[in-house]
């Protein structure tokens, strides 16, 4: 496991709080602006960033992230752009992982992608459509380089399945709070606490909850039972609604500090 993620969770635990994890697709709205927005996220209090790799068929994403990645792809974002965004934000001292559908990694070359990510300063990859059954080459490529492999569990996952997924996961386990696609929701699913409880019976990994978190109070609620709170669509929506790049950064920074307040307010 990469030391970086372990250190983040050691620190947040010592502070008696959950980690805040923010997602942004690279190249959205442009490559340069996505770097600046990620820096604003970190300034606002995000502990780990997920740099999204835009993909043509985002079948696990709701309308906000679909629009964002479409824009990024139209702007010419490629896998190399993503790696370069990772490099730039890592150089600013930000702890970054990549979130991507599987095909772009396979196409880039599994070993080559892992190597370039390591060189760019990234610490791991979240792979929402890679199942442990298909992951052998990926496990080899990441294990030899100390990159974290973050797999997902869902409310429908059986206990034994959670154990199976956790066995190949490192860094943290991503618990999808709800059966559904990404997107801000007015309520975080009631299935989430139960899923986290079941996950803890199977693993000692930090368990982070994503899907549907968009406000400080929601972050506080989730931070009450999870090791990390993952927020994506809410950031993307603020950027989509912003009139200028400066406004986008300000909005993102403001949301990040609201959420950072939330993870510190949890009981």
């Amino acid at each position: 496991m990469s030391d970086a993620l372990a250190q983040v969770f050691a620190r947040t635990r010592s502070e008696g709080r959950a980690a805040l994890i923010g997602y942004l697709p690279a190249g959205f709205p442009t490559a340069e602006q996505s770097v600046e927005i990620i820096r604003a996220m970190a300034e606002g209090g995000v502990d780990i960033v997920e740099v999204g790799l835009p993909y043509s068929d985002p079948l696990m994403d709701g309308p906000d992230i679909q629009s964002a990645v479409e824009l990024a792809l139209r702007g010419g974002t490629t896998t190399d752009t993503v790696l370069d965004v990772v490099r730039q934000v890592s150089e600013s001292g930000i702890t970054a992982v990549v979130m991507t559908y599987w095909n772009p990694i396979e196409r880039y070359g599994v070993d080559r992608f892992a190597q370039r990510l390591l060189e760019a300063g990234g610490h791991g990859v979240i792979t929402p459509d890679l199942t442990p059954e298909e992951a052998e080459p990926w496990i080899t490529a990441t294990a030899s380089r100390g990159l974290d492999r973050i797999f997902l569990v869902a409310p429908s996952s059986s206990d034994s399945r959670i154990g199976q997924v956790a066995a190949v996961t490192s860094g943290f386990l991503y618990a999808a709070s709800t059966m559904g696609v990404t997107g801000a929701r007015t309520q975080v699913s009631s299935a989430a606490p139960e899923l986290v409880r079941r996950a803890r019976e199977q693993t000692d990994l930090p368990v982070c909850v994503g899907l549907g978190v968009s406000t400080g109070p929601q972050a506080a609620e989730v931070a009450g039972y999870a090791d990390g709170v993952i927020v994506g669509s809410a950031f993307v929506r603020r950027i989509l609604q912003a009139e200028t790049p400066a406004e986008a950064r300000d909005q993102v920074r403001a949301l990040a500090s609201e959420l950072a307040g939330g993870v510190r307010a949890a009981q």
Partner: protein
Amino acid sequence: MTLLDSPAGHFGPYGGRFVPEALTAALDELEAAFDAALVDPSFGLELTELERTYTGRPSPLTFARRFSAECGGARVYLKREDLNHTGSHKINNVLGQALLTRRMGKQRVIAETGAGQHGVATATAAALMGLECTVYMGEEDTRRQALNVARMRLLGAEVVPVTAGSRTLKDAINEAMRDWVTTVDRTHYVLGTVTGPAPFPRMVRHFHEVIGREARTQILEVEGRLPDAVVACVGGGSNAIGLFSAFLDDPEVLVRGYEAGGDGVETGRHASRFATGSPGVLHGTRTYVMQDEWGQTMPSHSISAGLDYPGVGPEHAWLHDTGRAVYEPVNDAEAMAAFELLCRTEGIIPAIETAHGLAGAMRLGRELGPDAVIIVNLSGRGDKDVSTAAEWFGLASAGADSSGGRT
């Protein structure tokens, strides 16, 4: 055959499951229900009875005498899936999956559709079995297959036009997957072809094997021997695998699939996965995909909505790599020429998808010569394509008929 060496759910290096974890439990449940049904005689009996009394099986094998003359004199037989209830092979798979839906205790089905034939078949089975039904269809396809949109709505289904991406079949599958992941506890996704995550490719193939089984018996009856070749159009590949399946173990039978060449492979506007694609992952399975150097899916193009798809079933990928089957592109123009020819020589209006297979038979017949026996899967009828064809042939005007008499 070769499948013996592959791990479960795979065809050589192809197939498998690349899906969000939220779907794993549903796919496991489906696989268990399917495997239990396979060994339950009552399931087979119920399906066979539906095929006989509802679909109208067995479908005939028609000797196409006048059409054969245009195929280098090879003896061309048409496996008449167009005569099935709802007008295509798609009903074979849908009835099987609808029975499984009931067995799993789910009340709702969803489907993607390109040409609309799979959507119509799903809406039909839903009506028959009292299930709710939602069909996702690319907006571009709702326009070019408007007749089928009306049919689905008449049958009580909700049709959702998909405006994302290229607004065709690929995007309809994305949207159906998004629905499924949200509603999976009460919804079954009736995938319409032999692609997607395991167990779909194996299961959909199973429900279409009836095509090949019947065709084999029928050709042995009329010709007293196996055909020299079996031919089909290949979108996702369901009608093709249904016919091919009965002949794969007979090495003397040539197996030929025809994919959409669109404006021509050289123009980049086509759906020729084998001619231009490479192995990748799309819609939950590893297979040949039209993709750019970064693994982004490339848009496909075809006059035929049902073949307008940048991926293909994983078993076809394996049949291609092993050389057991050969796949070639057929351009829009070549397909439409075959379409017209079948109308005028046999009095059968085929689906434009099917016309690609017919064009393939013409090519192959000329290659094999007059002693050859060829079976073409006539996968569907062309009512849905009348306006596209009228536009193509310039027949839309109400003026005097100048297009000549019989050919």
